């Protein structure tokens, strides 16, 4: 079958969400709605100390007075925040469980996703903290990490076991009143990961978390806090897939990274939330606040591969506070069918000699809309700040859109800011060229898309890059007839 524009479009339309299945696991779910009692109940349920309960209540107070942001280039029916249940935990969860004790049904689910826990155990260098709905069900490699003084646990455990660290840093990068979704998350966050790397320690393995939404109508509010103490290093992987559901699901996570003097954090994400079906029905709303603070000589790299969600609103950012600090953002965002993504980054240069790099690759197919929105801000005392931004868009078919909104604010004359942007389209001639060499249309698209995304894929840790490539192919290909 040779390729025509029409056929490509058709092929893209027939793609179904591969991971659309649902596992029967008994859950304990709170009644729908949000008020002070619910916030207190969540805190109590999790056995939190009083300071945390008060922290949540304060966030809730802010949230009540805030309004949903409307500036993003996305259109959707606003969620009814009183129709959502704010807490759901798999009943069988037990923090003392080993991997062998995990519900076989759960393990089966991960197998379907191609991320079987069995396999991961064999991947000696990956420690996995699996977040199933809201509560961690398995944590591995804890001992090895503990020997180095590294803390890697659920945020709930950290609140109980390491209150001094949590108290000091939670909300220090993303304040409670930062934005509507961050305030909501601060009030009701269910669980998430916590990581602390002590001074001068290089974390010997990639830390990894897989998130899933499993309960119908359950909002999920992850909270992640990573603290890299002076001159330490950590690479953190986060990956998500969600089962197919009919009603829209809300996901409003907050990720805070703290890189102290001379520290380096690599944070990689592969996101594959349910994007909705081909008519644009269902799918996850993904409103995420991710931000890092870089002290002197620190470095933070965000790498993300975004293929899922019906609506994405996400801007992993770096505040380059310390002199000589470095911020990087590498992103691939794929949208198909009726998906909408408004994603990008903020690089705020405060310290002297700060550097930032932005490489954004947007791929749009179907009737989707894909926007890059980025801010490069150079403050008055950020002498010799440098930024390089590159935004490339790849279009498939004639009904999708790619948009670029780069904002630049420079208040220091010695700043150097570069911005490059390209837009291209997968051509019939490229597809035919591949066909002629014996490569079918589906594989040809995968090849072209992977080539387009290579600069970013190369930034991912090896085993993640393979998974990400697979995901790109799944997201854009039709089923082989």
């Amino acid at each position, binding site marked *: *079958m040779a*390729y025509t524009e029409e056929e490509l479009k058709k092929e893209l339309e027939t793609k179904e969400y591969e991971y659309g299945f649902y596992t029967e696991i008994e859950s304990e779910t709170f009644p729908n709605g949000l008020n002070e009692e619910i916030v207190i109940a969540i805190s109590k349920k999790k056995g939190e100390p009083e300071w945390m309960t008060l922290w949540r209540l304060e966030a809730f107070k802010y949230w009540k007075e805030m309004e949903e942001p409307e500036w993003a280039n996305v259109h959707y029916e606003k969620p009814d925040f009183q129709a959502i249940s704010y807490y759901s935990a798999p009943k069988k969860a037990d923090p003392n469980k080993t991997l062998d004790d995990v519900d076989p049904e759960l393990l089966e689910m991960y197998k379907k996703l191609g991320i079987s826990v069995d396999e991961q155990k064999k991947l000696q260098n990956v420690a996995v903290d699996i977040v199933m709905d809201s509560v961690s069900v398995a944590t591995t490699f804890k001992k090895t990490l503990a020997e180095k003084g590294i803390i890697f646990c659920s945020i709930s455990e950290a609140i109980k076991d390491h209150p001094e660290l949590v108290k000091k840093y939670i909300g220090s990068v993303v304040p409670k009143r930062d934005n509507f979704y961050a305030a909501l998350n601060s009030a009701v966050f269910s669980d998430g990961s916590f990581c602390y790397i002590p001074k001068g320690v290089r974390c010997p393995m990639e830390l990894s978390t897989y998130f899933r939404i499993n309960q119908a109508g359950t909002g999920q509010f992850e909270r992640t806090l990573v603290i890299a103490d002076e001159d330490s290093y950590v690479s953190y992987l986060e990956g998500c897939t969600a089962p197919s559901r009919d009603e829209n699901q809300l996901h409003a996570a907050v990720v805070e990274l703290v890189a102290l003097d001379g520290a380096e954090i690599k944070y990689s994400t592969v996101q594959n939330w349910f994007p909705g079906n081909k008519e644009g029905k269902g799918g996850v709303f993904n409103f995420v606040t991710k931000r890092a603070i870089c002290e002197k000589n620190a470095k933070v790299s965000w790498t993300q591969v975004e293929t899922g969600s019906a609506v994405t609103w996400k801007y992993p950012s770096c505040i380059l506070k310390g002199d000589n600090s470095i911020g990087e953002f590498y992103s691939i965002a794929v949208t198909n069918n009726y998906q909408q993504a408004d994603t990008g980054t903020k690089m705020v240069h405060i310290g002297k000699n700060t550097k930032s790099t932005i490489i954004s690759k947007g791929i749009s197919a179907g009737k989707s809309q894909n926007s890059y929105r980025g801010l490069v801000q150079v403050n008055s005392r950020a002498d010799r700040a440098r930024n390089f931004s590159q935004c490339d868009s790849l279009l498939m078919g004639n009904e999708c859109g790619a948009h670029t909104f780069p904002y630049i604010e420079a208040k220091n004359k010695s700043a150097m800011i570069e911005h490059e942007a390209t837009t291209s389209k997968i*051509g019939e001639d490229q597809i035919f060229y*591949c066909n*002629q060499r*014996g490569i079918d249309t589906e594989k040809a698209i995968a090849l*072209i898309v992977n080539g387009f995304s290579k600069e970013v894929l190369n930034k991912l840790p090896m085993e993640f890059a393979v998974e990400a490539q697979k995901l790109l192919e799944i997201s854009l290909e039709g089923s082989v007839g």
Partner: protein
Amino acid sequence: MLKINDLHANVDDKEILKGINLEVKAGEVHAIMGPNGSGKSTLASVISGNENFEVTQGSIELNGEDLEDVSPEERAHKGVFLSFQYPVEIPGVSVTNFMKTAINESRKAKGLEDMPAKDMLKLIREKSELLEIDRKFLSRSLNEGFSGGEKKRNEIFQMAMLEPKVAILDETDSGLDIDALRIVASGVNKLKSKDNAVILITHYQRLLEYIVPDYVHVLHNGKIVKSGGKELALELEEKGYDWLKQETAV
């Protein structure tokens, strides 16, 4: 090996090929010459299965099999190769990666396992030497920023890698300087065997000094108006195409 019977083909409802008859046997080299717009490149596209062209009448057979319902990639698996006149760029995909994919897709279609990396490397080394290609060249993005000569040499390198049964070289000589032409031609000559066939599409006699054809056909206005031995090319060079145009108009 390749048998074309009364082939008619349209593009955008305009008839370009108006009844082509051609038989190419294993071990033969055929040259197809003709003025601009005579349908040479269309013939190459139609043989390789480009569906921008609509076959309205006639047939193409490869080793006795009618290719009508065979997709371009399946034709490639069966041994049809087209060296493009204007090879496209695929950013971010290295020549090596592209060839690896092409070879393994072909093997998959034949029910074979992927070629072991060791063998692939050996093959690449052999073939790149054959075409005097610098290894660094192979890690570059396919055709991106290549000079005209590099693109054509890369096409023949791919031909060497894929070892086709029928190779159609569409104006492979255009854009080549004399040294590059010699390298490309010697590459093609080394790849020639009694089991495969080559169809050269060209305007000029120049290429035919290096790759000597067994037959020369002149295409004009969608039809083969004259066929002969290699001396026909020389005659064309001397008299130009107008001579034939007049002759066929009669």
